[in-house]
């Protein structure tokens, strides 16, 4: 009985809240500010990476202009924007880089900081992270 009151009930209420507050059909792409927002976010992320001792070395062989267009395209595609990403797979890109869990999480933090820089709302941030999270297996242990 207590279990119901204290744990199940809040969970049900939160689920209900979730159902009721479903945004008026804006895509995540729109919540990120469309292409302009994604471009800003990408630039902010590149700035953050450029200042990060832990992550910068992974980009030693990266052509930044190429990364900029491909990353923005990828974000546009996974946020339901009007783009299709046809570039190299994440597994292809990250093979042989020996990326550790802490490196991956550090990039998540840089992305969060970049999203803050780009004034993206927290809830949109979380949803973008939720779409990126399943890709970790292609980054850390690419086959």
């Amino acid at each position: 009985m207590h279990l119901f009151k204290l744990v199940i009930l809040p969970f049900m209420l939160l689920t209900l809240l979730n159902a009721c507050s479903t945004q008026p059909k804006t895509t995540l792409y729109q919540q990120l500010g469309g292409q302009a927002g994604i471009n800003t976010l990408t630039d902010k992320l590149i700035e953050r990476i450029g200042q990060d001792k832990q992550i910068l070395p992974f980009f030693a062989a990266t052509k930044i202009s190429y990364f900029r267009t491909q990353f923005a395209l990828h974000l546009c595609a996974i946020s339901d924007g009007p783009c299709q990403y046809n570039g190299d797979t994440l597994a292809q890109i990250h093979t042989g880089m020996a990326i550790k869990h802490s490196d991956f999480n550090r990039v998540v933090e840089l992305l969060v900081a970049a999203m803050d820089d780009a004034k993206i709302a927290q809830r949109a941030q979380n949803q973008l992270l939720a779409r990126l999270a399943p890709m970790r297996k292609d980054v850390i242990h690419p086959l």
Partner: protein
Amino acid sequence: MNYSPLNLTAFFTRQGQLFLAVVVFLAAWQNSWAAEGKLLATPGVFQVEGAGGGGLVPWAQLGGYATEDEIAATAFCSRAQLDEFDLTVCGAGVNFYDRTEITVAQQRFGVFPLKLDIQQNIYGLKTRLFGDLVYGDLPQISLGMQHKTLQDGKIAYLLGAQKDSGTDIYVAASRLHLGALAGFNAFWNITLRASDANQMGLLGFGAEHNHRSINAEAAVAIFLNRHLALGTEYRQKPNNLTLREDDWQDIFIAWFPNKSCSLTLAWIDLGTIAAVPDQRGWYLSLGGYW
């Protein structure tokens, strides 16, 4: 005060623990050499029996921010203030490579009606079996144990307990769902614990005709932002002694200003303790992560 510098037990007076908590918190506030591989807040806080977890329930996460090639250390003090009792706990832990957590905690349980303290030491071990809190298909699943010894079993035996030490074994599963509740990050944990402890062990272990049972514990939380989690916990309890023992629950808010420290404030309802009903009150926990 009557203690020698080497008598650690006596040092842990209420004032001593409070002092220690503040020292831990301030010392940890901006340390720059900590393990920090995990995302902010994902290790959780400090459970009253020393394990990484919530307040009342040990969670599947291991304490500290270590990932697969790091070692992390933690230290904390917590205090619960009820009507007729209080509980102070200080503890420390080490997380090896986010695979195994070893913890030590000392509890001091003040019984106001009898004007006495009951002390218990708890040695904990927890290992991550598989899964991950945030990533991949499976929730994080961990297996843990807590070995508890009462410093003086007199009260426990008087109340009908059979032993003054015991070992709990538990399995815990936890998961953080990104953006899952109206765009907010949502967390859950479920723990199954095999235990014969009476009131967590403070009133001994087992009783005549009553021994080990399996009890469920659960927690849910929502992250209001990256630094602030609001949640609730429930802990089913054995009921061995003829004195009635109730399930425990809390509502908590945990603050993670950075990866070096956390502060948890909770409202706890521990029900009937040693035949004294309606024991509710406040809980405050301060901890540091290295």
